């Protein structure tokens, strides 16, 4: 209803504004302080679908999953007090991974604010460290502008979560409503300007003069939609690309220049390439401790270019030689014409030597009677033809997914990288399913992680979303157990974890469920699950003591990886390559 004036309540204004922002799905949970808004939803239910979650943390992860899959802003809604505090983990997850979500919370009526009223909490204050920005709306006439601002702040620049806290009386008040069309007044918020030509020519000459360059592709490649530009740079100048966990999918894993993931559990060849490089081109990544290892010995002989939209990330962990504060895609579109065509066979040969070396360390090539998590995940890759949207959780399965599921398209891997939030995957997949209608959606989750948000199975069946949940069950909090094995003399304190009978549990929810404990049953069972229109669940019983290799111990040098011992290479039960290194 652009331009025309009508008398609306605060609650109605909220929905009107969400519709103006293009929102068609909201994940939430009603309660006292947000009831007026839920009551008004009745009027808008044809335009906005509301998903009733089982826990407000789930609502935020769903909004986050929706945002990561679609590139649009996800919306979560909750009541005051515990409803709002339950959103903190989800906001922190979105904050660390630069995911645009807007969280709307009800608040106690404004005259009661500060009186410790029932279900009152200062969520605007509590959310400051975990949000990009937050608002408390104390005047109904500010409401529409605040919502517009919140969406703009959430999606622009480096995206992130924004909270809007709205007291109950503001929702109930009425005002003459005109949708505000004037420019937003945000004097302190300016996403970066254009890049200067000086930087462009410096960038180009660093690349053209380098002998052993490596591109580090981060989440910024996806957020800036710069996949094409990154590949153009790589192909033109023959530069190998290593990705961060969140950068996976930003460049096609099947491309010969793509080395896969770097860092703590990255490929040894990718880490060696970084350590040996003479130029690092960091594209939308932030040199997290999980990708650098020991900063003192990190890529010691390289010049470093850092293209980053958030200036406070530049020089934070790694000091760089050329810092470009700008949108990645824009920078590369300027730079690429100045890049000389080059073939760097010597450099690529060195890296592929490292790569081949690790074939004898790959668990997929081992002879084994038991189903290994890595094998199950590789089979999921085969069974989905590498084309699924994967939502992984946090732990060993997450790292194995990153190693063994090859992603060729942007936004096909959603995972909690920065915060490492266990319990992220199931709700995030539910959220993503409201955008992704073409690809199959697979949740890959451990037995520890699934039990953190398992109540969202209820949401999955109530909404009948088409997702497949693969629980990789090894009976342990596997990654923690791995650390205990390696660094705490194998004292497995509080890491063995029991599980319910997942098949029975799923069936109690009305969800189709299966159990697999052998490699040959993986694909046939997946086929059954994929035929279901609604949710389905597969429990994979896997080898209990698997360890994710390679591993850079926390704080160790990036090239100082603990690797799986060399062994003979098997294919279909036959030795095809004898172990060469003793």
């Amino acid at each position, binding site marked *: 209803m652009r331009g025309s004036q009508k008398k609306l309540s605060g609650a109605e204004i909220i929905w009107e504004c969400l519709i103006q922002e293009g929102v068609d799905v909201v994940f939430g949970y009603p309660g006292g302080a947000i009831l007026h808004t839920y009551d008004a939803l009745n009027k808008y239910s044809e335009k906005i679908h509301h998903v009733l979650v089982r826990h407000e943390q789930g609502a935020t992860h769903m909004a986050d999953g929706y945002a990561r899959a679609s590139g649009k802003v996800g919306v979560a809604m909750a009541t005051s007090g515990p409803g709002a505090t339950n959103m903190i983990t989800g906001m922190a997850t979105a904050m660390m991974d630069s995911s645009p979500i807007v969280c709307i919370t009800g608040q106690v009526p404004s005259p009661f604010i500060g009186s410790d009223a029932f279900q009152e909490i200062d969520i*605007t*204050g509590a959310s*400051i*460290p975990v949000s*990009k*920005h937050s608002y*408390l709306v104390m005047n109904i006439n500010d409401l529409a502008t605040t919502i517009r601002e919140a969406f703009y*702040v959430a999606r622009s620049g480096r995206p992130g979560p924004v909270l809007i806290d709205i007291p109950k009386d503001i929702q109930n008040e009425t005002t003459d409503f005109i949708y505000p069309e004037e420019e937003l*007044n*945000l*004097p*302190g*918020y300016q996403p970066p300007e254009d890049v200067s030509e000086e930087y462009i020519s410096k960038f180009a000459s660093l690349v053209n003069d380098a002998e052993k360059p490596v591109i580090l592709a981060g989440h910024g490649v996806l957020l800036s939609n710069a996949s094409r530009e990154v590949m153009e740079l790589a192909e033109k100048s023959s530069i190998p690309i290593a990705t961060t966990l969140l950068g996976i999918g930003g460049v096609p894993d099947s491309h010969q220049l793509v080395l896969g993931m770097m860092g703590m559990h990255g490929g040894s060849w990718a880490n060696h390439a970084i350590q040996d490089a003479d130029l690092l081109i960091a594209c939308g990544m932030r040199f997290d401790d999980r990708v650098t290892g020991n900063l003192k010995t990190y890529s010691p002989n390289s010049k470093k270019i850092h293209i980053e939209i*958030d*200036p*406070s990330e*530049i*020089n*934070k962990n790694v*000091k760089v030689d050329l*810092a470009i*504060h700008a949108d990645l895609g824009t920078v590369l579109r300027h730079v690429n014409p100045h890049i000389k065509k080059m073939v760097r066979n010597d450099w690529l040969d060195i890296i592929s030597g490292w790569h081949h070396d690790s074939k004898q360390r790959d668990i997929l090539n081992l002879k084994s009677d038991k189903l290994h998590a890595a094998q199950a995940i590789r089979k999921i890759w085969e069974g989905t033809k590498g084309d699924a949207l994967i939502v992984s959780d946090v732990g060993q399965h997450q790292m194995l997914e990153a190693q063994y599921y090859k992603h060729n398209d942007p936004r096909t891997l959603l995972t909690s990288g920065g915060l490492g939030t266990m319990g992220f995957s199931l709700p995030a997949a539910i959220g993503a399913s409201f955008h992704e209608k073409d690809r199959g959606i697979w949740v890959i989750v451990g037995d520890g992680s699934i039990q953190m948000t398992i109540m969202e199975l209820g949401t999955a069946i109530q909404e009948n979303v088409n997702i497949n949940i693969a629980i990789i069950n090894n009976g342990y909090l596997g990654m923690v157990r791995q650390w205990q094995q390696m660094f705490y003399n194998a004292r497995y304190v509080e890491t063995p974890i029991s599980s319910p009978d997942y098949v029975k549990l799923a069936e109690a929810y009305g969800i189709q469920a299966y159990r697999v404990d052998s490699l040959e049953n993986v694909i046939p069972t997946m086929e059954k699950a994929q035929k279901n229109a609604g949710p389905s669940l597969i429990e994979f019983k896997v080898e209990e003591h698997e360890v994710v290799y390679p591993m850079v111990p926390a704080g160790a040098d990036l090239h100082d990886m603990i690797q799986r011992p060399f062994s003979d290479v098997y294919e279909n039960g036959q030795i095809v390559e004898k172990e060469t290194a003793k």
Partner: protein
Amino acid sequence: MKQTLITLVENKPGVLNRISSLFRRRNFNIESLVVGHSETDGVSRMTIVANEPDASKRGNIYFSLLKLVNVIAVKDVSSLPCVAREFILIKLNTSPEQLNEVNSVVKKYSARIVDMGNETVIIEATEEEHIINELIDNLMPFEITEIMRTGKIAMRRGRTHKVSSDKINAAPDDIEWRPEQISAYQN
């Protein structure tokens, strides 16, 4: 090295909370923060002094502040020509015999006695920080019972204009408010 930042912020509830939360969360060492109304309605002006020897960390402080949505502009004036002052109130217990000595210290530092009670005096001074420190040192022989310092406030020298929140630089020859370059913080 001390880093002095002049900051313009929207005068909205919670802004001070956001800034102090940032310093605590990022583990930046804040030395003083002074805030008050500016020449423009709805805009407050702050002088923040941080104590961080590492240049790239100083850059991180600068850009983290600038990133806050309610922060309109930040200028790092650490090495720019500025007038910098601090205000102090000092209360002493003195006997009438000591008053002359106190007076001579007060005069030497262009301070003033603003209150004389029963064997107490309150002294005020407005000076650069190191002179304030000297003043305190010279009053040490007397019995100091209270010190209240404001922390540093700073203002750049040169032609300037009334800042409106949408136009940071009004005229070309005004002292500028454009953000610092990242390269300014590279060692």
